[in-house]
């Protein structure tokens, strides 16, 4: 062979050989490498590499999981501890490895209990879960949840794998939450029963007061019939005053009665128009012939509890008429969309109006602003209005100037109205 000075043909054949070698390597058509010190199987080298990768990955996982992980021998000697475990018990890794797990327990009893309990659970289902307490290096006690399993499947002699979670904080919060819940539940029950008491109380009063008032009213009638001739003019004025007072008392009781009943009104929903409601209310108005009502047309249909809406408008319109000395008494009702399906309805009158400083108070019960001579009312009406509006998840406000009338703006959400989609589906 021309080893010193190869011929062109020899060079070409060597090159070809190198090419074959490279392509065999590239295409992984090689099994083994042969070195001066032995044969290396590429398959094993690949396996080895994979094993190393997987070990490195496992190590990274152990370093980063927010759970304490450690391995312990069958004799309960600590073999390994990840950083989180070290953090939980406050020891460095070197201080733990090689020591008995006893160092972490508060007492011999705890140490024995955990051992017995986890052993039994592992025997039964391959995995144990116990809650116990450990003592940190700094002496502090922490509540921990332990999950224990054998390192090798069903082989206790392979050692135990511990997952440790510090649940001290969690436990404390749970207890706090539990206590708070107990407290709020208690308060809720108290409030509910108080509310119920109040309603029953009001109901009883209104109901029971009616009887004596009716009796007084009857006696007054008897006096008018039997003793009218015997009374002088002044005494007749007293009697008239008495009659009026009883009537007022009756009206007040009636209103209160309605107010308490509002909570019991059935939640059955009906579809009806604003006109339907107004038609019902009109005959009940005093001096109805002096009232001019002007209602904007095209108002959407309601879809809610009819009785609530009737009380609502009845109170507003009654007020508009009652606190009104104009002639004619004008009531304008109009509306506009608030977007998102709801509407704002305004009820405008040319009545006596209300001082701005009272605009907030008028919706509270028994707030009467006007002296008896100006107008009559029980002080319950707007409280009823307010209650109904709240129940319908709407709101109401007033814009008013004394002597120039009042306008109530009533906002009601979409849930109170019949939507077009529903109307269509009903027609179809």
């Amino acid at each position: 062979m021309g080893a010193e000075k190869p011929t062109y043909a020899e060079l070409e054949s060597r090159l070809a050989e190198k090419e074959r070698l490279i392509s065999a390597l590239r295409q992984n058509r090689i099994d083994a490498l042969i070195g001066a010190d032995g044969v290396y199987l590429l398959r094993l080298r690949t396996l080895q590499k994979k094993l190393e990768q997987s070990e490195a990955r496992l190590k990274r996982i152990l370093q980063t999981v927010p759970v304490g992980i450690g391995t312990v021998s069958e004799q309960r000697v600590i073999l390994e501890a990840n950083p989180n475990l070290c953090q939980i018990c406050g020891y460095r890794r070197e201080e733990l490895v090689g020591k008995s797990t006893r160092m972490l327990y508060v007492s011999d009893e705890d140490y024995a209990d955990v051992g017995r309990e986890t052993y039994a659970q592992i025997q039964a289902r391959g995995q144990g879960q116990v809650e116990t307490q450990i003592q940190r290096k700094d002496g502090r006690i922490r509540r921990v949840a332990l999950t224990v399993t054998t390192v090798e499947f069903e082989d206790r002699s392979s050692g135990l794998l511990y997952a440790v979670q510090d649940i001290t904080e969690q436990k404390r919060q749970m207890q706090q939450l539990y206590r708070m819940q107990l407290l709020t539940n208690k308060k809720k029950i108290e409030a509910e029963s108080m509310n119920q008491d109040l309603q029953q109380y009001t109901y009883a009063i209104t109901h029971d007061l009616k009887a004596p008032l009716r009796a007084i009213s009857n006696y007054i009638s008897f006096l008018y019939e039997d003793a009218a001739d015997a009374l002088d003019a002044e005494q007749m004025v007293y009697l008239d005053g008495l009659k009026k007072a009883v009537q007022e008392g009756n009206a007040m009781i009636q209103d209160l009665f309605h107010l308490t009943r509002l909570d019991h009104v059935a939640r059955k929903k009906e579809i009806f128009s604003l006109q339907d409601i107004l038609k019902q209310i009109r005959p009940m108005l005093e001096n109805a012939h002096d009232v001019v009502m002007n209602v904007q047309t095209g108002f959407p249909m309601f879809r809610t509890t009819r009785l609530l809406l009737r009380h609502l408008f009845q109170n507003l319109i009654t007020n508009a008429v009652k606190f009104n000395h104009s002639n004619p008494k004008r009531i304008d009702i109009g509306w506009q969309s608030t977007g998102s399906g709801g509407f704002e309805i305004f009820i405008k009158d040319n009545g006596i109006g209300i001082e701005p400083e009272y605009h907030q108070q008028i919706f509270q019960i028994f707030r009467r602003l006007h002296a008896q001579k100006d107008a009559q009312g029980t002080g319950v009406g707007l409280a009823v209005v307010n209650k109904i509006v709240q129940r319908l998840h709407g709101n109401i406000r007033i814009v008013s100037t004394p002597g120039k009338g009042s306008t109530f703006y009533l906002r009601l959400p979409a849930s109170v109205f019949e939507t077009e989609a529903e109307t269509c589906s009903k027609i179809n």
Partner: protein
Amino acid sequence: MKKNRFSFILFVAGGESHSTKARHNFPLFCEKRLGTSYALEVVDVFESYATALRHSIFLTPALVMLTPAPRVTVFGDLSDTDELIRALRLEGVD
């Protein structure tokens, strides 16, 4: 019996998959292209890797054609017939 014109050594590594394939493929190739006029020695490097080193073979599977000179080496499982024909200079030989 006339002396074999072609003599080969095939280096394999035990039962590794490429080695096993080469062991299977090459005799079939020889019978088809060379009839019976060849000699083939198979060396398992697990048994004598010194032989491999002596022949400057540092990976398996590897086929060395000792004669006719000059010496040629082919790597892999020897499944590519065209490559073998070219490498072993058998173009035109039937």
